[in-house]
C-alpha cells in the first residue's frame, strides 16, 4: 500500500515536471494539459486534474482510493526551446507505448530540462542571418542586407548579454528598437547601406514576438481564453515597445538634424 502511494507521488511529480518544461519552453496550454493527463492516466491515476495558466500550473489528485496530492507551481515566462518541447512529446509517446517506470520518466525529464541550448555564438550568428534575409525580402539590396546582418548581430549580443539578464521586458524591447534604429542610421550615414527603412525592418525581426503571437491565437482557438489573452497582451506590448523604441530615436534625430535625414 505504501509503495503504491510512493509511486503515485512520483507519477504526479513527473507529470508536473513535464508540464513545467512544456509550458516554460513555448508549448500551447492544450498540449501541457493533455500531456500531464496522459502521464497520469497511463500509470493508473484517474483522479488527477490540472488547471494551466500561461505562467502557472495547478494540479490536484485524490479520491477515496488514491492519496490526496496538490501542487501549485509558478512558471515564469522564459525563452523558447522547442527542442525540449519535442523531447517531452517524444517521451510521452514512449510512455504510452512502453514500460518506463515513473522513476525512469522522472530521470528522463531531468535530463531534458538540462538539455543544452544552442551556443551563444550560433544564436548571435543566426540573428544576423535572419535579419539580413528579411531585409532582403522586404526590398533591400545586397548592401542593405550586409548592414542588417551587422545590426542583427549587435542586437542579439545586446539581448543575450544586457537585456536578458538585467532589463525588464518592456525596457529591453524599447532599448532594442532604439539600438537598431540608431545603429542603422549610423550605417546609413556612413553609406554602408542604401535603404534605411529596409535595414531597420530587417534587423528588428529578431525582436518580433512570433512565439507569443502564434501561441496566443492557438490558445484562444482552443478555448483557453485566460492564457491566450495574457499571451496576446504580451505580444502586443512587445510590438508596441519596439515601435516606441524606433519612434523615440527617430524623433530625437529629427530634433537634432531638423528632419533632413529622413
Amino acid at each position, binding site marked *: 500500500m505504501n509503495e503504491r502511494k510512493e509511486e503515485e507521488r512520483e507519477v504526479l511529480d513527473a507529470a508536473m515536471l513535464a508540464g513545467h518544461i512544456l509550458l516554460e*519552453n*513555448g*508549448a*500551447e496550454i492544450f*498540449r501541457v494539459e*493533455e500531456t500531464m493527463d496522459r502521464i497520469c492516466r497511463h500509470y493508473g491515476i484517474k483522479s488527477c486534474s490540472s488547471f494551466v495558466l500561461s505562467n502557472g500550473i495547478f494540479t490536484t489528485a485524490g479520491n477515496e482510493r488514491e492519496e490526496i496530492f496538490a501542487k501549485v507551481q509558478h512558471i515564469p515566462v522564459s*525563452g*523558447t*526551446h*522547442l*527542442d*525540449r*518541447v*519535442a523531447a517531452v*512529446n*517524444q517521451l510521452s*509517446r514512449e510512455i*504510452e*507505448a512502453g514500460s518506463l517506470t515513473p522513476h525512469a520518466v522522472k530521470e528522463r525529464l531531468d535530463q531534458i530540462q538540462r538539455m543544452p*541550448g*544552442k551556443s551563444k555564438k*550560433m*544564436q548571435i550568428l*543566426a*540573428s544576423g*542571418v*535572419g535579419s539580413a*534575409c*528579411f531585409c*532582403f*525580402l*522586404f526590398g533591400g539590396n545586397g548592401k542593405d542586407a550586409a548592414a542588417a546582418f551587422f545590426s542583427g548581430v549587435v542586437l542579439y549580443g545586446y539581448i543575450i548579454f544586457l537585456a536578458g539578464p538585467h532589463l525588464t521586458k518592456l525596457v529591453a524591447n524599447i532599448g532594442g528598437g532604439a539600438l537598431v534604429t540608431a545603429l542603422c542610421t549610423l550605417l546609413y550615414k556612413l553609406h554602408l547601406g542604401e535603404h534605411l*527603412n529596409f535595414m*531597420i*525592418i530587417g534587423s*528588428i*525581426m*529578431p525582436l*518580433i514576438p*512570433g*512565439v507569443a*503571437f*502564434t*501561441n496566443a*491565437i*492557438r490558445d484562444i*482557438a482552443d478555448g483557453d481564453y485566460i492564457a491566450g489573452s495574457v499571451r496576446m497582451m504580451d505580444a502586443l506590448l512587445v*510590438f508596441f515597445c*519596439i*515601435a*516606441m523604441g*524606433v*519612434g523615440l530615436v*527617430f*524623433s530625437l534625430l*529629427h530634433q537634432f538634424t531638423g*528632419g533632413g535625414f*529622413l
Partner: protein
Amino acid sequence: MTAVCEMAVAALGTVAFALLFGVPALYYPYCGLIGGTGWFVYSMLAQGFSEPASAMFATIAVILLSRIFAVRKQCPVTIFLISGIFPLVPGALVYWTAYYIVTDEIALAARTGFLALKVAVAIVLGIVFVFELPQGFFRFAAKKDKRALKEKGRKKR
C-alpha cells in the same frame, strides 16, 4: 527567377529563426521549406489580392504543411508553425506605422497601423480555420506503420 531566389532567402531566414527558437537541427529543412512556401504564396498572391487576403492564404499554406510534417515526423506542430509563420507576421507594417507617426503623416500612420491589424487578423483566421480540420484528415501523411496509425487515431494533434 526572382520568386525562386526570394523563396530561398525566406527559407534561409526561417531556418535562422528556427535556430533561435531551439528547433532541433533535424527539422531545419522542413522549417525552411515551410517558411519559403509561405513567402512564395504570399508574394505571388500579393500581386493580385490585398495584403490581408494574401497573408491569410499564405498562413493557410504554412499551417497545412506544418500539420502534414508534424504527423509525418511525429512531433509537435508548434515546431514547424512558429518559425514558418515568421515571414508573414506584420513586423514591417508596425515599423512603417511608427515611422509615419514620427514624420507627422498621421493619416498614413493610421492607415498603415490598421493594415497591420488587418493582416494580424487574417493570420488569426488562417490559423483558426486550418486547426479546425480533424487530425484524421492528415493521416495520409503518416508513415505506413499500423501501430503508429492506431496511436494517431487517439491523439488530437
